[in-house]
């Protein structure tokens, strides 16, 4: 007993000597808590986080929201961009320009996407999403609202976009806003300096890559951190070798991953790997883009967002891209990945009229003009959009996509999202860690596919 008493006295002493600090901390924290109660209950329900978010640059936007809030029937809009990014500013500018009162729910891109199935259990009236299987999947599950009536008032979209917005049941579920293509990026000055020409077929591509290697360059910058970038490379090799329809069927689960056609893609991919930067799994696409910028690498196959990595205007003016060359003359080079972003409506929105009004406005010119003025990184889907304000990259993107016969969305948008995140991402990463194991990797994909598709 004596022993025990002693121990507790000594601890008791410690407590006393530190009590001030503990109480102080508790008091500060408590004050924060009180403040939280006070402001949260009043503000957050009715306005966007812009009021709290840092704000000089969003004050104008916050003003609009405050006028919108008292009406009581603001449409809730879920956006997969959080404050602080150009994409957020662009989306906000666009939504403000619609004139429809709304409350924004801004969540960072990655956790919005990872959490989408939970999100759809309690969605906002209108929310951002993507065209392709990912859209049709939710439409089929009854998790997205039919907006065919909205499409009656959207005269500005071409038939191609309407098809991309249509679910398996023939109804529309998406209002497209913008898209961006995947292409081979290069520096014009480097090509001029070394006398390279843009390749248009397999032989020219291989010759160019060999030449670059002889000149001490890495032909292709390459990265796979996050496990999605190489999916683009798979897509384009697959579409060039096997065609667009095979891409669609393969990702819908109708084709065999262990079949000859897929094996041919991986055989070619294995042959091309020596022309790529080594060990892509640990490299972010930004680092790969830096290799292109610093002229260590000659080319980089990526989405046109590659330019967002740099602020150096001289480099950005020098940056150009070309369509991935044809690999099989019988298949040609008229298919490519050009993911379309857009907005969908919840299956049973609280404010359906408002949601439809918002979606109609999002399909209109005011929305996209305002959004594009802030964030011109992707190409507006609206065909009436004034193309004279296009940046050079946008202009070329529009031409490239306009010339393509078939537009794919991107591997992870053209198939079950779970299939990609649980199976494909790891499989492709493992392939890059050890290309010789590809047969067993493909067997695994084929066995697991049936759980998802």
């Amino acid at each position: 007993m004596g022993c025990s008493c002693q121990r507790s006295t000594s601890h008791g002493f410690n407590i006393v000597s530190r009590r001030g600090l503990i109480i102080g901390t508790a008091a500060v924290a408590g004050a924060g808590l009180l403040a939280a109660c006070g402001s949260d209950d009043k503000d957050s329900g009715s306005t966007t986080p812009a009021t709290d978010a840092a704000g000089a640059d969003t004050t104008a936007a916050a003003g609009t929201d405050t006028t919108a809030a008292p009406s009581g029937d603001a449409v809730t809009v879920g956006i997969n961009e959080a404050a602080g990014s150009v994409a957020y500013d662009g989306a906000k500018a666009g939504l403000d320009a619609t004139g429809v009162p709304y409350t924004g729910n801004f969540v960072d891109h990655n956790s919005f996407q990872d959490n989408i199935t939970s999100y759809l259990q309690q969605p906002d009236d209108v929310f951002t999403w993507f065209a392709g299987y990912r859209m049709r999947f939710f439409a089929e599950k009854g998790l997205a609202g039919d907006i065919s009536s909205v499409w009656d008032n959207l005269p500005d979209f071409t038939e191609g976009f309407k098809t991309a917005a249509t679910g398996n049941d023939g109804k529309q579920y998406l209002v497209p806003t913008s898209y961006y293509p995947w292409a081979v990026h290069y520096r014009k000055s480097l090509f001029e300096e070394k006398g390279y020409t843009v390749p248009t077929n397999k032989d020219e591509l291989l010759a160019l890559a060999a030449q670059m290697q002889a000149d001490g360059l890495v032909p292709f910058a390459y990265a796979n951190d996050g496990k999605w970038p190489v999916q683009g490379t798979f897509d384009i090799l697959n579409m060039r070798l096997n065609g667009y329809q095979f891409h669609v069927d393969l990702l819908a689960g109708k084709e065999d991953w262990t079949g000859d056609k897929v094996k041919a893609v991986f055989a070619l991919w294995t042959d091309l790997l020596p022309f790529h930067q080594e060990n892509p799994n640990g490299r972010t696409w930004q680092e790969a883009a830096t290799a292109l910028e610093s002229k260590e690498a000659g080319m980089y196959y990526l989405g046109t967002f590659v330019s967002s990595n740099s602020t150096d205007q001289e480099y950005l003016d020098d940056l150009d891209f070309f369509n991935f060359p044809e690999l099989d003359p019988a298949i040609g080079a008229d298919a490519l990945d050009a993911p379309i972003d857009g907005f969908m409506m919840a299956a049973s929105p609280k404010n359906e009229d408002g949601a439809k009004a918002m979606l109609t406005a999002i399909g209109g010119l005011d929305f996209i003009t305002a959004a594009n003025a802030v964030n011109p990184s992707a190409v507006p889907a609206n065909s009436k959009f004034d193309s004279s304000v296009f940046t050079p990259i946008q202009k070329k993107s529009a031409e490239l996509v306009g010339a393509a016969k078939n537009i794919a969305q991107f591997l992870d948008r053209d198939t079950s999202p779970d299939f990609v995140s649980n199976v494909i991402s790891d499989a492709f990463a493992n392939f890059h860690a050890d290309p010789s194991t590809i047969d067993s990797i493909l067997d695994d994909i084929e066995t697991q596919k049936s759980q998802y598709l």
Partner: protein
Amino acid sequence: MVKRPARRSRWSRAFLYVFLTFMALVWLVPVVSAIYAAFRPYAETQKYGIFSLPKALTLQNFKDAWTQGNMTHTFRNTMFIVIPSIVLILFFSSTMAFAVSRFSWRFNVALLLLFTAGNLLPAQVIFQPLFQMFKATPWPDLLSDTDTGSLLGTKIAVIIVHVAFQTGFCTFVLSNYMKTIPKELGEAALVDGASVSRQFFQIIMPLCRPVLAALATLEFTWLYNDFFWAVVLLNQGDERPITSSIANLGGQFFSNDNLIAAASMIVAMPTLIVYLALQRQFIGGLTLGANKG
């Protein structure tokens, strides 16, 4: 004969120091480079690499991280979740521990096992049923700052999950500690006419202060760092805690790593402060209840 072991121990000592220094450096590299990157503009590290000599050192990243990550707001959300959770966890677990450790009852061990076993379930496994339960539980909008009509999407749901999950572990630690407090203390109090609740509040709880402080430190760090439940249960970006601020700074394609490094430094600060403030209790608390004494 006397010298040889001394020499050997000097060598092994030298080896130990080399080894420890090396390991310390290995562990410090990521932390130090993150701190270093946090003070440098993105354009500079992008151009010259992370390990280059600095051209400009600036606090701008910290400023931007605070404002762009909306940290004033998210920090409030975190405190709204963490503080009530810790208070409730410590209260529930100390009452439970008191019952199973100070009174002899047939189901003592069974109860203790039940509480501890709850810790062994991974959150990922039970989040779906919990999610549906929260969704099906009506909750007046007046009592939350959302208008979902159910517990799902409210910070209260996150508090409930934290309390339920952490009470088991704390009960385990507290009951082991309380077992070390001599039975005679309770008996003496009983003779003096103290009721059970008086024994709990006036005899046992004051003696448990060190372990409570240790648990509070641990729990603060765990709950503060939680991202999973916040993302799963809170749909509205506005409701999310400070861990989401870091996620907010990463874009769809482009991420400013220096900015994220600065944000991580800011976010790590409060746990460090709590740890330093309660350090002595924390280390003392780790061995509490390790043996019956």
